């Protein structure tokens, strides 16, 4: 009796109350969900944006570093187009620790010579033995007549043999390189002095290539004593066939198509996000960012 009386005294929810509560809860849930989704999209878009920008910055750190060191007038640009460039990319700095070139009468001086460079190299890794097809390449400083500058230059050559069994004149560790020299100027006795710098380089191609996933990437292909590597995707994905744009300028600032006349290289990288994100409005697509810079070649001849 007492229980019945208590039950009768309790007041339940009416249908109207329930409906109102359900509607309010639905509105609240919808609002929370909307905020959640918006924030998630925002977060995702931000992450993609950061990813793209990181890609672009990596490109802007790697490419200018190689391009700045070019001497275009002396053939460091092997091939160039709007989306690709093949260059001699400097990799090593060494020091000759024996007198490599004997005193020979002046005259054209092509041929195979041996030089010994000090170990370890001043910068970069040691030279590699050729694999039969591919070679490491070097420039050897030729001072020529020490009293004048006009005959100074670098002799290009390729390393056909490497031996670490030969030491320097002073007995310290060395690495002997047998170099097929292609000297553009006559050889003078003492023209390559003890201590002459040697710069090693490899041939590198940076090119925009569409990969199997249909996306576009900046690829790198290297050619040195250990062989040809690549093309390997380095930066990307990029914004289609215009993801990389090289523009070549001569010393007067005009666009040029002649590799030997290049004094500056304009570089535009247009990156694209890995995944599609919600763009402003109802659109869904790839997030795109771009960076542009102009690189002045530091090693072009000065006179």
């Amino acid at each position, binding site marked *: 009796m007492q229980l019945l009386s208590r039950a009768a005294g309790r007041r339940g929810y009416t249908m109207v109350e329930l409906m109102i509560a359900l509607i309010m809860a639905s509105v609240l*849930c919808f609002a929370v969900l909307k905020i959640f989704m918006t924030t998630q999209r925002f977060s995702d878009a931000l992450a993609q944006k950061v990813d793209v*920008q990181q890609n672009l910055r990596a490109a802007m750190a790697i490419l200018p570093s190689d391009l700045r060191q070019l001497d275009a007038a002396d053939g460091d640009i092997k091939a160039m187009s709007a989306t690709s460039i093949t260059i001699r990319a400097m990799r090593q700095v060494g020091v000759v620790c024996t007198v490599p070139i004997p005193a020979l009468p002046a005259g054209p001086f092509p041929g195979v010579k041996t030089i010994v460079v000090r170990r370890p190299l001043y910068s970069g890794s040691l030279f590699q033995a050729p694999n039969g097809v591919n070679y490491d390449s070097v420039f050897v400083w030729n001072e020529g007549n020490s009293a004048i*500058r006009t005959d100074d230059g670098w002799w290009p050559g390729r390393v056909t043999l490497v031996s670490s069994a030969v030491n320097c004149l002073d007995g310290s560790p060395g690495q002997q390189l047998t170099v097929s020299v292609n000297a553009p100027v006559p050889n003078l006795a003492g023209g390559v002095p*003890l201590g002459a710098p040697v710069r090693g380089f490899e041939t590198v191609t940076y090119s925009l290539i569409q990969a199997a996933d249909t996306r576009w990437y900046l690829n790198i292909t290297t050619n040195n004593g250990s062989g040809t590597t690549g093309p390997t995707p380095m930066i990307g994905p990029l914004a289609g066939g215009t993801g990389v744009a090289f523009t070549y300028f001569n010393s007067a600032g005009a666009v040029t198509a002649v590799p030997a006349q290049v004094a500056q290289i304009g570089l535009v990288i247009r990156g694209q996000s890995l995944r599609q994100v919600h763009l402003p409005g109802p659109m869904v697509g790839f997030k795109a960012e771009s960076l542009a810079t102009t690189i002045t070649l530091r090693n072009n001849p000065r006179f």
Partner: protein
Amino acid sequence: MLGRGAVRLRNEHGMALATVIISLVVIGALVAAALMVGIQEQRMSESTRWLRKSSGLTEGGVNEVLRAWDAQNTNGMTLYPTAGSTMAVAQTASPSGTGVYGGTVAKLTDQIYLLDMTGRDSSTLNGRNRGDGARQRLGLITRVLPLPVDVQAAMTIGAPVNFGGGNVFVQGTDHVPAGWANCPAAGTPLAGVRAKNAGDANNSQGQMTGTPPVLITPTMDSTTFMQYGTTAYNALAAAATIQLNPGSYAPAPAFVGAVCTPGNTNWGSPLAPNGPCGKRYPVVHVNNFGGTTTLTGGNGQGVLLVDGDLVISGAFTYYGLIIVRGKMSTTAGGSPTVYGALMVQSMNFATTAFAGDANIYYSACALQRTRDAVGSPTLLRSRGWVELL
């Protein structure tokens, strides 16, 4: 009434509070994620900016080292990698306060140097960066351009000289100085005396030898004595290591233990090339055109520039290049010995004035070392700029 109402409130089970709390947690987490992404973005941007600053600092440091090149201490270093072949460039703050640069200068050959510079931006130094901050390392291969003096004879004169009967020997044969190691073998001989007009060198009686003994250059003028390639006499004099007024001097090497002591009368030690002052090749400039400077003895090496007249009254030995704008003469007991070359614009080597001996020997080695030692750094024709790893 109040009691019943309170009971009723306690018994109601709502979900608004829970929903709000859950929503706040979810939204907070997402905002935190977005914030973190933003912070990451900001850090990457700052890192890039620091790196750019470091690059600028490094390049500026390299150029500053070139501008303030200390030829006396740098050009005389030994060859890399022996002791004394590398000179430290102390950490130096950039004028704009954006950071510091420092590194080393290594001498690779007699003329080739490698500048190895690292720049660090100021925020890295102040500890405001997370991690190690930004730094950039660059190299510059540079070449010291030897002083481009066109020497074509052991002695070049701008006015007639009368050797008379004194013991004066002027030889264009290439002499390798005794005791100087690593000099190349004697090279092509030069003329003994180079003069403007035939007959300017008189009464030699065989003291002048060379190929030829006398070289006549009708086009010779004041630029022969005052302009050396792109370097002018006045510029060389203004940048001289030692500036002197006319007077009497007897230079001699000065050192404490194994350390050479710079001083106005320390002109290096050509007679002890391996001694403490063996690498000292100062450019000595005696100013005051019209004045007279007397060398009573001693020895030295390098470049000696005399605006006025030069009188030698003792046994003075010099290795390198002497350029006298005025007249040169000797008195009784004066016996100069020069290995290198002598250029006198207004010669007065008259018999009456020339009471002592004189030995003027062309030496390619002495000249080349002098040229190298006092040369100024220049950029290589190409490929001097290096990104060091």
